């Protein structure tokens, strides 16, 4: 009867020695008893073969390659420091292009992480729309951005040029508004208070958007983007372009805000 004690070894003893036997660490009398039991027991014999086959199948599975961006995503979501090159940037001279890339990465990362959150996605969409309208009004074509020179010096130059244009545009708009409000005042003086002041409504709306955003840096940035477009494109981001950020890795016990993010970054790049 299978499963019954055979020779001097029971099935439970056989089971206890099975992994050792497969590992090849069983020897001497125990091994011959084990092999005897495997030959005669109709339960344990097949079990030995199956376990051996299963182990072989498992051993055929080779290590898989993790995705390329996994390490950088992990670093981004933990220490917030992209790579050691970035950390030691002040001491170890790295390539000029590499440094730019690091800055861009550090700059973009919190924005991108935040933008991935649904509650910000809409705001970002609106901000981008406002921005593109403002830019096109200010004479900057979005298609030109693709060919934009991204060297810091030229970015600074573009920034001042754009600022100039936007300020000019803003001044013009202000001029138009002032004329409009004068005309309205004339009208109001002519007709008694019939219409609820449109200007008042606009002001209320403006105040509301201002009050909506808290003092958090990321939201501050978002507010800059969505604010009527009276700030040029680089006004929000340029001050951060000062060079490699100081090491933000402090202590493990006090994690950085980026660590707290719950969204996953598997399709980050």
């Amino acid at each position: 009867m299978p499963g019954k004690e055979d020779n001097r070894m029971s099935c439970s003893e056989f089971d206890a020695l099975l992994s050792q036997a497969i590992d090849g660490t069983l020897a001497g009398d125990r091994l011959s008893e084990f092999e005897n039991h495997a030959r005669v027991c109709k339960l344990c014999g097949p079990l030995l073969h199956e376990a051996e086959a299963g182990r072989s199948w498992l051993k055929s599975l080779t290590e898989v390659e993790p995705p390329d961006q996994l390490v950088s995503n992990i670093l981004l979501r933990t220490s917030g420091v992209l790579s050691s090159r970035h950390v030691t940037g002040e001491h170890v001279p790295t390539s000029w292009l590499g440094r730019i890339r690091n800055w861009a990465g550090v700059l973009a990362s919190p924005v991108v992480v935040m933008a991935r959150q649904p509650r910000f996605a809409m705001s970002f969409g609106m901000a981008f729309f406002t921005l593109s309208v403002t830019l096109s009004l200010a004479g900057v074509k979005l298609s030109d951005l693709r060919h934009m020179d991204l060297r810091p010096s030229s970015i600074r130059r573009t920034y001042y040029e754009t600022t100039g244009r936007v300020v000019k545009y803003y001044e013009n708009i202000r001029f138009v508004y002032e004329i409009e409000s004068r005309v309205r005042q004339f009208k109001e003086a002519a007709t008694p208070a019939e219409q609820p002041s449109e200007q008042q409504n606009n002001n209320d709306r403006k105040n509301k958007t201002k009050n909506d955003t808290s003092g958090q840096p990321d939201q501050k940035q978002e507010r800059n983007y969505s604010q009527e477009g009276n700030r040029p494109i680089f006004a929000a981001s340029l001050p951060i372009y000062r060079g490699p950020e100081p090491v933000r890795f402090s202590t493990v016990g006090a994690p950085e805000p980026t660590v707290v993010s719950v969204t996953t970054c598997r399709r980050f790049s």
Partner: protein
Amino acid sequence: MEDAQLAALLVRRCVAGDAVAWEEIVQRYHRRIYNLCYRFAGSADDAQDLTQEVFIRMYRTLNSYDVGRGAFMTWVTTLTRNLLVDHFRKTKHDRLTDSLDATTSDHPDAMTLGDRIPDEGPPPDSGVQSRETKETVHEALQKLSPELREAVILRDLQDMDYREIATVLKVPEGTVKSRINRGRAELARLLQRTYRQVM
């Protein structure tokens, strides 16, 4: 320097605020953790998410690692395994509905288990394994119960010894061995059964 010593040193430096040490830890262990997650959870996307979660948790709790109480590798594996258990519980419902579908593979063009299993199944160690065969074994592995799956992964894919596995799973060594035996045998039966159906 030995692996354990190096790991302990890295952890100390990291807790002291050394970002380079943290990156070194990530570089050293991400592959292993990713593979553990991939083999257990089954999909590359889940493995990527889980690996990130493991490191986020590790980063937060690194100062709780006590060098005197065991190898860093065991600590990391325990951390990973705990997250895998959570993940398994969370996705239980999805899996039950998904199980009605034939394949569990990531690849849209994946064939069913039966399509790919070789006739008579040449012993896996007898030659070069095709990508399809590996995919088939990986799929079969997903059909094991989580207790058996984790045991065989830790033993045969992560090459941990019984004592370490017992520490990670918090069960006696005898239980570990028994699960490994049953897991291996069950996997072989699954693969055999599939190719018998084809014949």
